[in-house]
Structures are given as C-alpha cells and as structure tokens.
C-alpha cells in the first residue's frame, strides 16, 4: 500500500494539510497568460516558482512552456524587487521580443510589498517598454486562494489593463474561459462558429499548448487571444463568463470598466451545463441553434439512455477545481450516478453556494472545500464509505491503487496520460468523451472481476 499510513478514522486537522487538492496562485496566472498571443508570462519572485510552474505545466501538456523570472536573491528580498523587475523587462524585450509581458507576483514579492502597478509604470516611464509593446500584471499571492484564484486574477488583469470602450458597441460577445484545457477552448470556438456567433474568447490556450510538430520551435505559437481582440472586449455587447470562480471576476471587472453586461454560467461540461450554454449563446446573440448541435445533443442523450444500467447508483468520489467540479457533479447526477465524496482545496463562497444548489439532488454527499479539504480527507472518507469510481487529477492514482477503485483522470494536473489537451470535455461531444471514459473504466472493472461463468461478451 502506497498510502499505508492513512487511517480510516477522520480527525479534524488545523495546522497540517496532507496531499492537497489545490496548488498556488502563480501557476494559474502563468497558465492564463499563455492564452494571450505573443505573451511571455513573468514570475516576479524566486527562480524556483517559475521553474516549478513551468515544469508542472510542461508535464501536463507535453509542450514547451516559456516563462521568465525575476530571479530574486536575498538582496532583492531585503531591498525590494524593483531593480530585478526593471532588469527583467529590459532583458526580455531585447532577447525574447514578446508583444506583452504578463507579470504575476509570488508569496515572496507580496510579502515584501512590491507594487507591480508602480514598478511596471516605472518601466514605461524609464523607456524600457518599446513602442507598441505592453507589460501587464496581476497580484497573485500564494497564501490566498489557490491556482484558480491566480488564473482569475490574471484574466482580470487582461481585461482591466487592455479593454477599452470606444463608445460604439460591436456585434460580438465575449466568452471568458474559466480554467479549461486548450481542447475545451477550441471546442467553445467551434460551437460559437456553428451557431454563427462572433465571439472573443479569452484567454485561449489552443494552438499554444497543443502546437503541432513542425521541426521549428515557435517561441510564440499562433494561438492566443490578440491584444487587439482584448482591447475590443470593452465594445462587446455582452460577456458570458464560464465559471463563477475562474471567469466571473473578469466579467465583473469588464462591466465595471466598460459597461459590458454579463451572465455567469457553469463551464459547459456535461449535458445540462452545455444546454444552458447553448441557450445563453442563442439568446444573447439572437441566433437559432443549428440542427447539427441538436443532433450532437441527441447523440449524447442517446448514449446516456442506452447505457443507463451501468451508471445507475454507482458511487463516485471526485476532487479537483471548482468550475469543473460544479458541472461534473451535475453531469454525474444526470447520469443517475451518486457523487458521494467531493473535495476541492479551493475556498470560495460562490463555489459553496453553487455546490449547495447542485447537491440539492444529492443530500447524501460529503462535500468540503477550502481549508482542511485535501486528498487525505477524501481518502479517509472513501475508507469509511467505499466508492465505485474515483475522478480527479493524476495524484488520485495512489488512492485508486490502494483501494482498488476504477479511476478516471480529470482535472489538473494530469502527469501520466495524454488526451486532455487534444480531446475536449466541454460541449456535447465533450460529454460523450466523459461518458466513454467513465463507462470504459466501469466496464473494464466488471470484466476484470467477473467470474468465468459470468464473463460477458456483449455489454
């Protein structure tokens, strides 16, 4: 047993987090910044932060993840990091020539009180930012929230620092992507195109973190929302924020700055959330839903109906990030499954409230988020009430192995399988992929455990 020291008995812990179901803000900011075309994310802190974030994102995507660091030493930590950031801006523009540098802070620079707004302004005043180039920033202290908070903060930074209202509205809708995979962002664009709706999707990591092999390393791959597009988000007629935790703050900021009204939706994972997304897109843009989308929806419902016996009543434990867990839990309920244990390390009232709404259909569920909600607790819950399926990031494989539970990898990070960056889990086709993965895991287990006389050819 690889987690042999985890006892069944649950005891409240106040100081010790064990096997976290979250990580820190800056990696989220780095991921979001990669969704701007021609952007170099920059970590204002010690080298280790940048190195760890790049490593984790690289392991998850099997793709280049370029980012720079202010390389703090003890001197900078005592005297402030201004000189390091100014030097970074100069070095980066002369060597790596990005369109924009997206700076995020770290626990180190936040603790010493570095003011990114002031330092980036000084960089401009000192002539260190070439004409037509930009430096944006987001404050992302690691001791507040989680990687989801950092993602949200960087997306807020994009809108606040780029969006302008020219006074004339455009026939376009902003779709603010909550934390999702490049494949999901590509699928959102596909769906909007099928609907005939002009959208600006941001951030957009497709064609950045799923770049093709060409024999050439494109330092700035072709994907990402452009700066011009980000500027024009202020003139859009409406914003749809996909995710109350990772996307809504940017929609609020945009409404405040440029008076762009918005609606917050769940990320369209699973049938019901996708239904709401398609309806909202149809309503806000005043377009009809094309028959290809209705047919796709029909195919998903068809599979759910045809295979319902394999889902019904099966108990599921899941862990991960708020904006994915919310619609995923709902989808499990639509599949007639029982989400009995749910954990997320990310704190947040919006998250808790939305989960309460979803879990009205599952009063039996253990749900916990924020402090004390870690994978150690989830494992203990599973020991007390065993499940038929575990859904979560790669770290779940240790629980799955010890407890011998079928395991579907979902969320961040996935370090030991590919697919998440190429095949979407949003939209109806994404729902189909989730159904296939869940069903495959359950049926493989049934096959593995079946007595010889009970081993079925047709299932």
């Amino acid at each position, binding site marked *: 047993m690889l987690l042999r020291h985890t006892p069944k008995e649950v005891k409240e812990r106040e100081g010790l987090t064990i096997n976290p179901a979250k990580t820190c803000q800056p990696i989220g900011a780095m991921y979001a910044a990669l969704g701007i075309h021609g952007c170099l994310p920059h970590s204002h802190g010690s080298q280790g932060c940048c190195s760890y974030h790049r490593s984790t994102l690289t392991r998850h995507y099997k793709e280049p993840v370029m980012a720079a660091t202010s390389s703090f030493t003890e001197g900078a930590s005592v005297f402030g990091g201004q000189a390091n950031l100014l030097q970074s801006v100069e070095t980066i523009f002369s060597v790596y020539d990005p369109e924009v540098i997206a700076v995020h802070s770290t626990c180190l620079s936040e603790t010493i009180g570095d003011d990114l707004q002031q330092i980036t302004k000084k960089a401009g005043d000192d002539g260190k930012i070439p004409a037509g180039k930009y430096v944006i920033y987001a404050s992302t202290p*690691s001791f507040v929230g989680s990687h989801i908070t950092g993602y949200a903060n960087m997306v807020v930074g994009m809108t606040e620092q780029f969006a302008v209202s020219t006074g004339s509205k455009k026939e376009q809708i902003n779709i603010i992507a909550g934390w999702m995979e490049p494949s999901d962002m590509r699928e959102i664009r596909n769906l909007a195109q099928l609907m005939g709706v002009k959208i600006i999707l941001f951030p957009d990591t497709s064609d950045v973190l799923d770049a093709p092999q060409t*024999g050439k390393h494109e330092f700035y791959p072709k994907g990402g929302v452009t700066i011009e597009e980000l500027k024009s988000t202020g003139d859009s007629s409406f914003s749809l924020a996909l995710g109350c935790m990772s996307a809504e703050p940017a929609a609020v900021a945009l409404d405040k700055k440029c008076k762009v009204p918005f609606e917050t939706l769940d990320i369209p994972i699973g049938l019901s959330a996708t239904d709401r997304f398609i309806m909202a897109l149809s309503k806000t843009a005043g377009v009809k839903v094309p028959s290809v989308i209705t047919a796709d929806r029909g195919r998903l419902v068809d599979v759910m109906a045809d295979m319902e016996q394999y889902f019904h009543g099966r108990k599921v434990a899941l862990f991960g990030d708020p904006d994915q867990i919310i619609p995923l839990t709902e989808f499990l309920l639509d599949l007639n499954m029982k989400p009995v244990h749910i954990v997320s390390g990310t704190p947040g009232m919006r998250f808790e409230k939305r989960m309460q709404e979803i879990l009205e259909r599952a009063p039996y569920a253990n749900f916990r988020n924020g402090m004390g909600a870690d994978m150690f607790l989830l494992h203990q819950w599973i020991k007390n009430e065993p499940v038929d399926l575990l859904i979560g990031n790669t770290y779940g494989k240790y629980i799955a192995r010890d407890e011998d539970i079928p395991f579907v990898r979902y969320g961040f990070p996935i370090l030991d399988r590919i697919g998440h960056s190429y095949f979407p889990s949003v939209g109806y086709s994404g729902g189909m992929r989730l159904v296939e993965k869940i069903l495959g895991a359950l049926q493989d287990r049934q096959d593995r455990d079946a007595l010889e006389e009970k081993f079925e050819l047709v299932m």
Partner: protein
Amino acid sequence: MEAKLHLPDPSVIKEELINRYPAKVAKKRSKSIVINDPETIPEVQANVRTVPGIITQRGCSYAGCKGVVLGPTRDIVNIVHGPIGCSFYAWLTRRNQTRPESPEAENYITYCFSTDMQEENVVFGGEKKLKVAIQEAYDLFHPKAIAIFSTCPVGLIGDDVHAVSREMKEKLGDCNVFGFSCEGYRGVSQSAGHHIANNGVFKHMVGRKNALVEGKFKLNLLGEYNIGGDAFEIERLFEKCGITLVASFSGNSTVGAIENSHMADLNVILCHRSINYMGDMMETKYGIPWMKVNFVGAESSAKSLRKIAEYFGDEKLKARVEEVIAEEMPKVKAIIDDIRPRTEGKTAMLFVGGSRAHHYQDLFTELGMTTVAAGYEFAHRDDYEGREVLPSIKIDADSKNIEELKVTADPELYNPRKIETELEELKAKGLEINGYQGMMKQMKQRSLVIDDLSHYESEKLIEIYKPDIFCAGIKEKYVVQKMGVPLKQLHSYDYGGPYTGFEGAVNFYRDIDRMVNNPVWKLITAPWEKEEAGSLEASYVTQ
C-alpha cells in the same frame, strides 16, 4: 574520431550566443561561456546570479534542500512551512524510488505535507500553525523524524523554524524534529539548498546512533538519489562484491541508516555538487576519507569498483571485484557491439544538474558519441575545473549567506581510517581521495562549456550544431523536440532507468539508440510540403 566531426569555430559561436543581449548582460554571460582546453582549463564563471528576465533552467534553494537531498529518505515526515505550492510541486515529481523493508514499514514519500500558510499567518506569524502541524503529524504517524522546510515568506516574516523544532522535539520526546532555512531566495540556485541540507543532516542526524555494522568493507554512498532505481543497481553490485553499504545519502535510505553513517570507513561521492560538504565534514569529524566515483557508464562503474577495492587494499576484495566485472561486462559488451555502429560519430549536448552533465559523458563515449557542448545548471567552478581551484574561488554576497559549519574532530568518535602516508599512496595510484578533477579535463579541445545556459543560447546552439541528442530537463524537453532534436531528460530519465552500473549502461545505450534513430524525426514534414511534391497538383481535377 575527431577528424570525422566538422565542428564549427567555437569563438564565432560564442559571439553569436551573446550578441542579442543588452551590453551589460552580454559581458556577464560571456564569462560563463568558455572554449575548452583540457590542458590549461580556462576559468568558468559559475554559481553567480542569473540575470533577471533570462529564461534559466535553474530552480531555488528549497528545491535543492527538500526536493533533492531530504526528499528521498522514506521515513522522515517532511513538512513544508509555507503556502501550498512549494510542497505540491515537490510531491513525487523527482522519481526517488524506495523499497521499504516490509509492506508495513514507514514510507512517507507518497505523502505531501504542508502548513498551507494563509494571509493571516503571513501577517501575524506562522509559528503557531507550524507547531500545530508538527503535533498533528506526530499524532497521526508517530514518525522517527520530522523535518521542517522554510519557504520564501517564512524567512521574511521571521518565523524561527529552528526554535519551533527544538521546542517540539523536546515536547514529543521520541521524535527528532529539525528545521531548514532553505527559503527560495537564498543563494543563486538549488546549490544553496544542497549546502543547507548537508549542514542540517550533518548536525541533526549523522552520529545519533552508534550501532555496530557487520562487514569488512563498509562505505556510504553519497549523492545518489535513486532516481529510476539507480541506487538499487549500485546496491546490487556492492552486495555481489561483498561491500557493505551503511547508508546512502539519500536514495532508498532511512533515518536510522543516516544516523549510523559515521560507522562506515569510506564515503564514495557520486554527485559532487550536492553532497561534497558532507564528505568534508565527516572526514573532519570522524576521520572518514571520501573518494569521488562514478557509476554512470559501464567502464566507469568497473573503474569505481576497482577504486573502492584499492582503497580497502584487500586482495580478496580486489579479486572478487574483478570476478564481478568479468561476469557483468560480457553482457554489456554484446549489447554495445550491436548498438555502437548506429550511434558512432553522433554528437551530444548536455546541460543539466551539477554533476550529471559530466557523468553522462562517459556513457556517450561508450556509445562512440562526442559531447560537443556541456554545462551545469547550478554547479560551482570546482565542478568544472576541479577542486584545485577551490582556494581561488571568490566568496560573493550570495554565498556568504549560506552557513559554513565549523566542524572539529569528535573527541570520542574521531578515528582516521587511513593515515596520511596511506592516503598519499592511494592518491599516487590515481584514486581521487578527497578530490575531484571536474568536467573540463575530460572534455575535448575546442568543445564549448557553458554555465547556466539560457533558453536563447540553447536554441542558438541547436541551430548551429544540430546535435543528434540534447540532454537537459523537463522544461527544455519539448522545446528542443519541437526543433526536431530528441531530448533525453537527465533528471527524470524520461521515466526510464536505472542508468547506473552495468544494467543501467545497457538501459541507456538502448534508450539513446532508440532516440537518435527513431523514424519519427523523419516524418515531421508532410508529403505535400516536400519539394518534390510540387508538381502533384491538378492531375485529376482539371477537366
């Protein structure tokens, strides 16, 4: 061999590597880019700050302390005091394999412990939460040892992890609690963390136990972290030769073994950069000499085993080592004879670690490949130029902040294993006793040596040299592969290995053969994008 390789003029290349930098940066970088001469050994600027904004391979002090040195010991509960990220990123990502004595024996490597510091802990101090965390870890697991690692904010807000550790150690009674001030901003790279870890392990662990160890030839293995099972292969060889491994620092190790490590009669050092401090300190305090060895490469492994036998000076051991080598080598030779025609004459670049970029050159030599450029991420000048340069290394402000322990001979336990004249004799026989010659003596004339290679420089090098393989880490892996050049990860081994000893050498030969000769590299261009495809269009569509 060299006649076949038409290497570009390194002095021209050096210009190309730095001409895009701002003037001051170019000046600084040029001192870290050196054209090698194995006879005269030019000076390499190393272990200095990375210019902010440069895309560097380097990590931080915490990574070197917790991730590298302390992480692989299975029965310590390692609590990271700080916000959640630092502990999360170091959770199982270094592939330190471990083999507990029994299915019940302690193993915390699969766990990630953190105080998950929140804003109020940063504002009002985190010591209270740390104490609670230590108590909770003790109540849950009753471990032999709990180690505390400070992350950046901890040092800044003035939490005293050492005082907390002392207090909790006393309170708990049967659990050794100790702290490390390894905040990420200390030093200029992981290297500072190695030193801090060495100091802590030496102060708080080594010498706590005095258990008699059976065996005639007793040694410790220093700087071997059992990535991909490297230590298992070395353990296999020691066992076969009749050499007793007292403790490993720190792959596949336990608290008990490290606490008893002063019972050994020799320290052999693999990764010089991360653990040489321990060798020196144990020599001074206990009289145990250390010797540089290398188990990466079949020939190097044979040589290292012979050196160990020579050190102990026992004829039976020497004979047994020869038997083992004679048994292992034919298997290796059969495989290299098959592979070498496919790898011969190819070129490699290695930019990794603080010792690996040196050791792995031996394996490439065995494959008939030439290392045209190499460098370390976080090494010091002695790792490049040899320990002779130690007295001439200037201690700058960043290094001054890392404590140098004042070690003296232990009044009771000091026992020089070899007297001065014996050591001199061994050195005369070519054994590197308390010494290390560094990487450059082994590298070819006119090859390039670059410390703390930047991303920009790596792309330029690849464009100019078009090496057959590039060795680095995960951050570089897919960048280089996008350029159509295979990259071998020498931190994680691309999830393969082991690469030590005789079995490891075979694994490496096979992996490199597979990588440099993989057909995928010829499939990159689509058929319609190839020049000869130009006239294909319109054969069927014109009417």
